């Protein structure tokens, strides 16, 4: 059971014509080169695409993925609507990371998450101390403290529902 990397970075270019209609096209860049070089390749191709199209190239998205090769399957009774909601501080601003289907063993009687469990301490270390500067809020400010951690429930969005209908 391991996450297997996709063989390529996918670059999705977005175009817009004079009516405002949008369209996308995709290109692929092999993995194994540093991210700055990937960005440089994507930008070079953007310039070439701009030159052969009359539409406006509004931007591009670089993405990379990993897929679980042998998933063991979800635990019995797991429900992704049951979140472990964690609120982190980034220079006094707050940012949220939810944990879908938080294990019931992580929840205290009052609904708070057990901040002293080995599993939670591991998450805290990854976000705050082990990779200082890597994890940020949306503005790019590093996470520096934990503000809150509790159980929360959300509704199931239609797009996330299972394809089969449960009896």
């Amino acid at each position: 059971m391991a996450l297997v990397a996709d063989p390529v970075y996918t670059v999705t270019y977005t175009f817009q014509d004079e009516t405002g209609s949008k369209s996308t096209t995709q290109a692929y860049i092999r993995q194994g080169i540093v991210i700055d070089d990937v960005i440089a390749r994507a930008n070079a191709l953007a310039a070439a695409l701009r030159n052969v199209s009359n539409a406006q190239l509004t931007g591009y998205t670089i993405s990379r993925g990993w897929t679980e090769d042998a998933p063991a399957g979800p635990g019995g009774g797991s429900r992704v609507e049951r979140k472990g909601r964690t609120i982190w501080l980034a220079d006094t601003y707050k940012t949220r990371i939810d944990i879908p289907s938080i294990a019931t063993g992580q929840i205290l009687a009052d609904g708070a998450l057990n901040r002293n469990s080995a599993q939670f301490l591991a998450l805290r270390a990854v976000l705050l101390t082990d990779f200082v500067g890597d994890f940020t809020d949306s503005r790019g400010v590093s996470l520096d403290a934990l503000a809150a951690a509790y159980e929360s429930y959300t509704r199931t969005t239609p797009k996330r529902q299972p394809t089969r209908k449960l009896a």
Partner: protein
Amino acid sequence: MWRLRVWFVDASGTISYTGAWLRSPNETAIFAFVNALRGLSDAQITHVDVLRRFPYDSQVPSGRDRGISVLVHRATDNTNTNTELDAFPMWVPESGIDAARALWGYPTLVQDYASKSGYNIDNPAPGDGEPVSLDNEYPDDTDDYYLIAVRRNFWHKLLRDARAYNTLSLTLPNEQARRVRLDIRDLFLGVPMREVLERLDRIIELLEGSDGANTDEIQRLLLQIIAALGSS
């Protein structure tokens, strides 16, 4: 900032994801984060992705023809250039076919570009474009014999039920079936009526150039379509 998403599925099959922001797509940090989540959740992690949007300062758009060219680039085996390992379509909106085909001729581009399966495009050999808009470029009459036959009998059905048309495409040779599926996609994308009519005109032209064409039948269908659309 890079957006990291970790996707989960629970016992009911419901999907969810959680995200974090990263300064760079540091694989070690990503895997550490995923492992930490594994310890906290009893749902199954299925996949992980990381992405970033880059704005681009481009020209003001001109033109509104769909004009999308589809290119097939061949990634070939270095040791045996006759072996095609992978090919993929690429669309270039608002572009002429020749210009789009020349895309990979730009000097800085070839190295490190890959096919979707990860083969290097180190020997680019653009195949024939497959235009989405049929009025851009139409293959010879022989190639389109099957498609014409399909359209003659099923175009009117297609307007009501694309699924029947799709099922029919399964019985066709690969090349023609692919064109049929492209047509279906075009309809779902909302091809302008002008283009639909142009396609029908083109079909009639092709039929008039071949023996035994039943143009009366096509014209009858065309009128039916116009009437149906006019009343909808």
